[in-house]
């Protein structure tokens, strides 16, 4: 029997000239950007004393009972904005995602229109939506809720549509063979199959909504962010530190709750 020679494969395959040029170009862009916008060691060193002074003025956080009561009301409002906005957004996302999902959409190839709509909602930052709603609806919590609704549709619309596209095809085919329409297939086969994914995305959306709703007040769209802006504008740094602490606790608690819910679902 003839002796065979076995060649050890190379650890790394060669880089094509095109890939090499692209890598060099990318490196150039990153280095140029760092030179323009990254903080220099000198700037960081200069900033430390100011930051230390600011932190000193923030301590101890304000624990005045009247102030805490006002914060509690604002936190409740923030939570309401997040909850109601996310809920309405999630409900509206379902039909929009159905229209956007490839191979499932009742619009056929028109699904691209629905997809583009969802992309548009996602592309515009939530603070810009908040500015638009404050300008059109007026200052306050309703503008904040509308912002969260739009933001949630942008987020859930995409993930719901992807889940629908990835849903098991066999049960859909089985219902289609029986004579079920598109709506029946959605309700009977697709939604039950993707339910864990829907709940998961919805919990992320709720978490995101809570985080977003705390900053919406900065542009006048209600919630605790409004108090934070006032505190900074009036140099009430002890109030600001208490608000930041409260926001941290709320967001952290929210994440713990949603993590536990997700773990139970999976």
């Amino acid at each position, binding site marked *: 029997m003839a002796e065979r020679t076995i060649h050890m494969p190379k650890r790394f395959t060669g880089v094509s000239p095109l890939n090499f040029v692209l890598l060099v170009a990318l490196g150039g862009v990153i280095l140029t950007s760092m030179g323009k916008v990254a903080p220099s060691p000198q700037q960081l060193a200069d900033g430390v004393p100011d930051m230390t002074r600011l932190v000193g003025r923030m301590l101890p956080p304000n624990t005045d009972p009247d102030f805490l009561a006002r914060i509690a009301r604002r936190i409740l409002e923030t939570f309401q904005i997040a909850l109601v906005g996310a809920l309405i957004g999630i409900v509206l996302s379902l039909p929009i995602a159905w229209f956007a999902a490839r191979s499932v959409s009742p619009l056929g190839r028109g699904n691209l229109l629905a997809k583009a709509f969802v992309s548009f909602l996602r592309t515009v930052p939530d603070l810009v939506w908040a500015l638009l709603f404050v300008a059109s609806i007026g200052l306050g919590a309703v503008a904040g809720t509308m912002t969260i609704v739009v933001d949630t549709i942008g987020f859930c619309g995409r993930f719901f549509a992807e889940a629908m596209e990835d849903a098991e095809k*066999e049960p859909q085919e089985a219902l*289609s063979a029986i004579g*079920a329409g598109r709506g029946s297939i959605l*309700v*009977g086969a697709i939604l039950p199959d993707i339910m864990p994914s829907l709940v998961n995305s919805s919990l992320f959306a709720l978490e995101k909504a809570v985080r977003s709703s705390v900053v919406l007040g900065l542009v006048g769209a209600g919630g605790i962010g409004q108090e934070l802006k006032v505190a900074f504008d009036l140099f009430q740094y002890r109030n600001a530190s208490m608000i930041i602490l409260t926001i941290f606790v709320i967001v952290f608690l929210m994440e713990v709750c949603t993590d536990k819910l997700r773990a139970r679902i999976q």
Partner: protein
Amino acid sequence: MLDHATNTQTADTTEQPQAAPLIMACGLTKSYDRRNMVLDGIDLRIWAGERVALIGSNGCGKSTLLKSLIGLHPISGGTLECFGNPVGAQSSRAQRLQMRRQTGFVFQKHCLVRRRTVLSNVIHGLYGDRGSWRAFSHSLAPEEWRARGLQALDEVDLADKAMRRADALSGGQQQRVAIARALVRRPQLLIADEPAASLDPVSGRNVMNLFSQLCRAHGITLLYTSHDMDHAIDYADRVIALKCGKVLFDRPAEKVTPADLKVTFDG
């Protein structure tokens, strides 16, 4: 019955009823890419009450033919009639839905909705009826539908598993649920695509026995594909062999010989 002239062996023409066939295909063709013909001039007739096995090697077009019969895969050419109505581009949506409602379909991989209860899956078989959105779940379904679902489950001996999740059952049990789902509407025609292929030999034989008994008891026409020659010969009145998208032979099950099978499955 076989009308096909080319590339076929002799067709043993047993006496057929005078009534119009339930399924009639003439020169049926199907291709997915306009180059390769998956079905290439299929002629066949199936009468009410018959039990017909469709055999052939992998890729010979069996599953495509079954799915074309109920319009799941649109045909490329020829004519196809099911329950006296055209199937294909010339059929209206209403005709297509009506035809599907008279047909039960059992797939090789059960195709159950895993996260729903067994009873809900069986009631899904009533989708397409008036007010069928209520077939979404047994909780919302009318009492009559729940009773029909439970009766269908009883027929496949799974009534005691009605409230279990579908994915909690064994493969054989899931296939029996799929049969109950197909039968809950009491279809005139039951189509099964390799119903025993994913099951062990004992479960496979149990499922085929069940098919045979229920179709006989309810007078349902049965058309199924199988790779298992025992399943094809033992449970069918007639065997149709496909090869390269054409009908190779079409004869009573008792007249199928080992030589026929060799020709069918040899490359």
